[in-house]
């Protein structure tokens, strides 16, 4: 089969000149905005309503480890640079550079996920205060053993974001593996670009989550 035909399979002529995959991706991201919009609204609606439940006053700052989260935020933002460079490299046909940049994006994505796993594990297990009592234990359903909504909205929101990052990591990993089959060419630039759109979007969502969920607790 001739090269022209093979290309035809990947990028049919479209009415707008924009590849189909890209339109699909933008439509999906528009939809995904509403997913996160719903989750973030849920969190914000409950944030103040249930600061005090039972005998426990919940100061969220006692739970958060803002240094760690700032670090992982930085890592995730930095991963977007790698992603952008990967897209640029594949457009130029530089396979070696594409691989390294994909690798970098994956590693930074994994570091972010590791931070989140660490964060979740510590929140769920709580901390020990000076006299050795277990305090600030936040689970899906309770805070310090009393029923509470904060854990519900927090874990489900940030967990959904983490799931998005994990899916992105798997997706990029797929392309990294594919790049070693010898079949990768500039024809796949559109695929990497779609990965990039997704990755940047997930990043942007975190740029909203980090101030609204974390930083706001220190300001307001």
């Amino acid at each position, binding site marked *: *089969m001739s090269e*022209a*035909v093979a290309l*035809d*399979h990947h990028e*049919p002529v*479209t*009415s*707008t000149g*924009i590849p*189909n995959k890209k*339109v*699909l991706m933008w*439509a*999906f991201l*528009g*939809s*995904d905005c*509403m*997913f996160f*919009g*719903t*989750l973030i609204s*849920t969190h914000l*609606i*409950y944030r103040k*309503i*249930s600061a005090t*439940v039972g005998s426990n006053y919940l100061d969220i700052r006692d739970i958060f480890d803002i240094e760690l989260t700032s670090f992982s935020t930085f890592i995730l933002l930095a991963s977007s640079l790698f992603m952008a460079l990967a897209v640029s490299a594949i457009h130029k046909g530089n396979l070696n550079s594409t691989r390294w940049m994909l690798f970098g994006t994956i590693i930074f994505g994994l570091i972010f996920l590791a931070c989140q796993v660490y964060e979740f594990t510590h929140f769920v297990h709580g901390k020990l205060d000076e006299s050795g009592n277990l305090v600030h234990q936040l689970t*899906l*359903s309770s805070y310090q053993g009393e*029923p*509470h*909504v904060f*854990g*519900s*909205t927090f*874990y*489900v929101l940030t967990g*959904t974001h983490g799931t998005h990052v994990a899916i992105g990591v798997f997706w990029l990993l*797929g392309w990294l593996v594919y790049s070693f089959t010898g079949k990768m060419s500039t024809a796949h630039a559109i695929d990497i670009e779609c990965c990039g759109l997704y990755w940047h979007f997930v990043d942007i969502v975190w740029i909203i989550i980090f101030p609204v969920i974390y930083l706001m607790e220190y300001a307001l």
Partner: protein
Amino acid sequence: MAIESIKYAAPETETAVKTKAFPRPGQHTSGIIDWLTTIDHKKIGFLYGLTALFFLLLGGLEALLIRSQLWDHNMSVLTNRQYNQMFTMHGTTMVFLVIMPLSAAFFNFIMPLQIGARDVAFPRMNTLSLWCFIAGGITLNLSWFFTGGSPAIGWFGYAPLTDTRFAEVIGDMGPDFWVFSLQILGIASLLASFNFITTIINMRAPGMTMMRLPVFTWMTLIVSFLIILAFPAITIALAELMFDRTYGTNFFDFLEGGKPHLWQHLFWIFGHPEVYILILPAMGIVSEIIPVFSRKPLFGYGLIIFSGAIIGFMGFAVWSHHMFTTGMGIVATSAFSILTMLIAIPTGVKIFNWIGTMWGGRIRFDTPMLFSLGFITMFMIGGFTGIMHSSVPVDAQHQDSYFVVAHFHYVLIGGALFGLFAGFYFWLPKMSGRMMNEKLGKLVFTLMFIGFNLTFFPMHYLGMIGQPRRTHTYNEGHGFETWNQVATIGAMILGIGIAIGVYQFVNSFFNKKLKPAGKNPWDARTLEWTLSSPVKEYNFARNPIIKSRDQAWENKYGSRDNHSEKEPLDDHGVHMPDRSWCPLITGIGLFVLVLGMLFHQGIDASGELVRDYTFALIGGVVFVLGIIMWAIEGPGGYHLFPKESEE
């Protein structure tokens, strides 16, 4: 078929050779394998339609049981719980498994033909949507066979009805089935909508500008946008509910700090756009039919499309009119009341446009036209009662009464279903290649029209004199009996009408004695009528070059300048994508994953809750493998070289 015309079929592509473990069915596949692996938008549309018609009969049966229970005071056809299950299943089935997929059937079949495309943008994803829809339908109805039976929570699933602690039956699984089936159906709708949006934006034939798109295609586009923006709200709400029920979170649990009110908001942020998701396709269908049977172009084409877009846009700003009696406060209530009144304007504009189209036209009263006229009149009645509800004090009186039931059935049967039936009578000849019996069609319309009005018009009155909805019986002495009996008789007539209609639709595919339809039996206007009936697998032998809005009409009656032209076929011929097993495998994976999640909880010997994710994991692995194989096999494809006359 076009088999004779194939001079040359492309050799197996490289990717196809590499995936021998799961060979792709070739281009001449037929029978059951063809139906399981098809990626043809026409076959997918057919399967959508067939499955949805089956669910229409099932949901109708549930409605008839409800009507039998209400025949007289203190009847015991159904227990109170069974009654709750019936109206829950009836509502959920009719909304998610009947009206939406029937619309999807037309989107699939008609829209690519109307824009001059050979298929949708992502044919395999389209197949996955179909399997997800079928898996969702099966999941919902599997609930009958497990602990607690079907959900008894209403199609809206208000908290705290879904709270496990308030379940009538210990370990009631009904709401779980409801949650998971709606999730899969949501995936089906989302995937299909991404596909349709990409197709309409990107796959139009040369010359088919946005303002030459047929109105039905425009409505497909608007509805697809509504779906991708509205469904996430219910997806998240259902996920939160799943966490509440399975992992003990407190989103909607008022005993532990949650707010049941939030569920109502999340549900109706989805639920109100959903109303327009149900009605706009029918409006699109009617906008196609009325010009054809009035022999006039559509009056105010641009205005109709603009109104549709405005309805879609404003549909996101009126959800709280479902919640006027929950105590949202004066400002919110007033704002939603005003917006709701405003949304009547674009709707009214459309109705005036349809009337303007008919005005002075040479009207033919064939069955599609009868159903369209039924649509306009009945939808108007539903619309008027809707405007009544937008007034908060009036709504407070109507809330939870049969008046509301009358209102939304006028919109959903008199509106959506009549519109969809009009579409069936109009477009089935294009799908099956055969004309349906006009006399039988008119009988179906008469039965449905009379039965429908007998059923639902008395409900206005019943609601006004105080019969509450969602209540399994009523006492003697309220004076409810007479009109309930009229309604029940009407429902039987309506049921018979629908059953005959469904028989007629299915029959038209198998009865060889019916008259062949030919290319354009109705003297219709849009591009799909330039093709043979049934449509060839490649749709267009040559890409059409579009010159005007009503292309089929212009080709026949218009000046030569407005006739469409044909692009020459290049050396590659018509590129057809290969059939694929991957959508089916992925769909099965998802189905197993959902079943695994539904049944992962158990109680061990010591009475402790144990979780076993084995089946969910197996499903997840199959799902991921399906996607990986999907990616590796690529679109594939073979080439056809039809003659120009063969389309």
